């Protein structure tokens, strides 16, 4: 006979398990995302014709809405106008780690990626990303001309096969498959915040980005979030002569472009970076305003910086939002208006430049 106390404990444990939020794997009714016949009550679900994978909609269709903190689908495009604040991290903000496509969709072309289906083509750049070569077509969410999914597959939807149903945000994403890649960016590593950095908290709740502490500008830093950016904006990340003048060595402090995938702890020319985010060079608090990547691949969240080797790595998204922001160059803060106004997020790292 089972002891009543033990039974009670088991019941409580089971309830706890049930109440634990899922780790971003798609849940719920199939019909939330799929339609078997592109028809519901004799009306076409998608008037333009059925979608691949029997989907109700496309990427933008599903990931469109206003984040509330309770939505399990991350909304990257809020056509009603999201609240960003000064840095996208304030308590009133309702954008996520990648920012939001709203502003670029409003025609502010410099404020984000001009992704097909969400925005019109950038009239200044066409399909040629700064620092890279022309794409074969419009920028898309996924696939050959996109960022997410398998970038060797042309079709956006096909590129995402095997992702949403196999996601597990509780583990370190090692990039081995699309599902095992950080935010389904195939090949990219990292640890995903389960709420996509809705109201991130430095000490407990944010993404953990993977970086490489490079010692050479020709190192492509495979698997890092910055290496993904480099697939289009290559000159800004790696390549002979793209970061360091011929007369200097990598890391000596003379850059011709702002470095990424570089550990600030290796900076030889200045010690100002040791003051990262108000710290002293040991166990500095992690900044959700200007985050850094780490070489650490464990599921332990990097809540401090300058705590271990390779944990202060500059990355593209230390300064930029991948999807969009209200600001030029899709920056995380209003750099352009500083110092008269705006916000100097640069000073999180460049601590003497404030």
């Amino acid at each position: 006979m089972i002891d009543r106390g033990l039974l009670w404990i088991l019941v409580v444990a089971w309830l706890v398990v049930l109440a634990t939020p899922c780790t971003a794997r798609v849940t719920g009714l199939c019909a939330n995302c799929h339609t078997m016949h592109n028809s519901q009550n004799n009306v076409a679900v998608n008037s333009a014709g059925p979608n691949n994978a029997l989907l109700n909609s496309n990427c933008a269709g599903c990931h469109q809405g206003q984040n509330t903190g309770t939505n399990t689908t991350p909304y990257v495009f809020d056509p009603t106008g999201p609240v960003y604040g000064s840095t996208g991290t304030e308590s009133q903000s309702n954008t996520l780690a990648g920012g939001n496509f709203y502003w670029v969709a409003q025609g502010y072309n410099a404020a984000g990626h001009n992704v097909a289906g969400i925005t019109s083509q950038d009239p200044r750049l066409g399909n040629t990303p700064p620092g890279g070569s022309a794409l074969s077509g419009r920028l898309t969410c996924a696939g050959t001309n996109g960022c997410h999914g398998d970038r060797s597959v042309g079709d956006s939807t096909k590129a995402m096969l095997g992702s949403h149903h196999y996601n597990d945000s509780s583990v370190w994403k090692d990039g081995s498959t699309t599902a095992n890649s950080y935010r389904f960016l195939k090949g990219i590593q990292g640890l995903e915040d389960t709420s996509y950095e809705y109201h991130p908290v430095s000490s407990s709740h944010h993404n953990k980005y993977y970086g490489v502490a490079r010692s050479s500008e020709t190192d492509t830093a495979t698997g890092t979030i910055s290496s993904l950016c480099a697939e289009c904006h290559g000159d800004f990340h790696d390549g002979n002569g793209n970061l360091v003048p011929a007369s200097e060595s990598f890391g000596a402090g003379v850059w011709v472009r702002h470095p990424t995938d570089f550990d600030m702890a290796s900076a030889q020319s200045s010690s100002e970076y040791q003051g990262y985010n108000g710290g002293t060079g040991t166990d500095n608090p992690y900044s959700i305003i200007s985050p850094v990547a780490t070489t650490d691949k464990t599921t332990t969240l990097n809540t401090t910086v300058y705590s271990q080797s390779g944990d202060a790595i500059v990355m593209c998204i230390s300064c930029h939002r991948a999807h969009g922001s209200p600001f030029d160059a899709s920056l995380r803060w209003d750099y352009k208006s500083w110092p008269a106004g705006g916000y100097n997020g640069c000073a999180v790292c460049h601590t003497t430049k404030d």
Partner: protein
Amino acid sequence: MVVIRSSPGQHKGVCFLAALFFVVLLLLPCQLWAGEYLDSAHGSTLHGVKRPSIDSAGYARGNCAHCHEQHASIDGAEPEPSSGTPSPFALFTTNFDSSKTLGPYSESDNFCFYCHNATASIQVVTNYDYSQNFGCAGLQVSSIMDAFNQASYHNLYDIWSFARSSFSSWFTNGSNPCNACHNPHLARRNWAYPSDPLYSAISKPTDHFNLWGTTSLMSAYSYESPYCSGTSREPTGSGASNGGSTPDYVSFCTNCHNPSNTIYSTSLGRDLVKIDWSSQGDKHGARNMDGGLDIEGPYGSSGGYVLSCLDCHEPHGSSNILLIRRRVNGGDLHDSITTYSTNYWGYLCTRCHLDDYDANAGTKEPYRWRYVHHEAPDHPYTAMRCGQCHGGGSMPIPCTNCHYHGAVDSRTGLINF
């Protein structure tokens, strides 16, 4: 409940203190302390950097983008001026052309000259020479580049070359020689507040990441600020007489120009004379004087002064040789000093020392020195065996035969500088 009781007298005392505290608060100056860069000349929202192409793109004045291009482009294109290639320190063009070993300089030789140049293409910044800005002289040059493009100048290639080897912890091949003395992210508008050393524009090469001279002042020495105009003192006529308004330029300059460092001058084609400003070195430095002192005000005959390098020298360039100022101790030099071996040096010396005219003795002629050399009570040389000093030539002889940094009369052992 705790009740604190006080007598009416105590109550009045507390009220008075509270009122006094409030009044003191009101009287405190309303100051908004910005960061180091925002306090700098370049980061100022009123006076800071402003590149036309960046300004028209909507960037605020003082923004980093006026000098730096983080990706060697903005919006997929390189803003003007377009150099075509990314530049060191992510600057908009080459920092310094190290093939330029001698002046005169042009804008493209040095990144700083794109603004610090009277006809600059980016932003015309007006700067006067030290003689004018701090020494009450009239106008001669109106930009830093113009100051360099004179008879003598602080050779930029030599600075760059020396700094690469001596300050390699932060100074690299791609660095700008101006940065040896100035940190562009810290340097303040000293020229606008010439008697307030808190607005220092200089950083010691060995301490590049801090301003120098804000609290380290010439008043730490036995220093007398020279006249600026009339009996007013440098800097700019409102300086403290004891050097309390003047940065410690001795420590600053001797960071490089000291007895240890060998510095080659491409301009002169030789190593520079080593400067020993210690008590074992020059009398114009900390060495005690010997004999008397026949001297002009504000200096007194008791001597014992330590001069600032900038009492006699310009930091950037001069119409005289060897960076000699055109105005010293409250008066302009009678004429330019254009050659080394000349007695025209008297134009400089007489700004502080009594020549025959001022002494009303000797030849009684201006810029002649018979009195101090041969007739003054402490005269060092008896007027006999003239040829030992004067040779067979005509008198007077060039000052520089005997007087220069580190000069010692090998015959008499006298310290001659």
